[in-house]
């Protein structure tokens, strides 16, 4: 489930899920469709657990319900762009899924 990340400074964000169903399957699938377009490593955290942000079943295993606080971290050349795209997805676009 865990990816190995280096200890150097990496782009990160914290996002509170405000949709009705939390981190559900459709949301997780579409998250991976976006994350898969970036070359950087991406990980998504919740309540002390970390998931590979490009792997749907990993993300679902976080079991993050509505109102959960998620941590998003990236490592790689397009990490900032990935944070921006995925944050926007979680905060805005995922609400219609």
């Amino acid at each position, binding site marked *: 489930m865990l990816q190995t990340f280096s200890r150097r400074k990496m782009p990160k964000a914290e996002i509170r899920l405000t949709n009705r169903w939390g981190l559900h*399957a*459709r949301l997780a*699938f*579409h998250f*991976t*469709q976006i994350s*898969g377009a970036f070359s950087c490593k991406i990980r998504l955290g919740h*309540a*002390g*657990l970390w998931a590979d942000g490009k792997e*749907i*079943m990993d993300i679902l*295993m976080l*079991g993050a319900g509505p109102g959960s606080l998620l941590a998003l971290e990236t490592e790689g050349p397009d990490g900032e762009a990935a944070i921006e795209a995925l944050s926007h997805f979680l905060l805005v676009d995922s609400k219609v899924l």
Partner: protein
Amino acid sequence: MVGVVICAHGNLAHEFLSATNFITGNAGSISAVAVDHNVDPSEARNIVKDAIRAVDDGSGVLVVTDLYGGTPSNICISLQDEIKMEIIAGVNLPILLKAVSLQKNSDLQTMANKLKEYGKENIYLASDFLKKKDAQG
């Protein structure tokens, strides 16, 4: 692109397809075929054969069946010499969701091997996982 067909008893294949399309927003190219025990066995074989051939662009077809040794699986196995295909017996949603992600960029053999393992890895006893989660939290 590798074609993917779900082949199973009763309405199971179409229901799996429906759930997959619901989750992925129809992002994949997966089809379903039911084996109806009310039709003649040779007709059932032709229906399955047509469904598999319909999604084969030359890259081959991954067929996911519900139960090794069951009729849908047996029909598919009987077609292996006629069509370039691999069969995974033991469909689950993790396999189908991952198939959507893999089918555009993988060859048939790689995809079949990965999905067989993926399907097994993603079966959980929820209580075991929740205990681990509690211990970490």
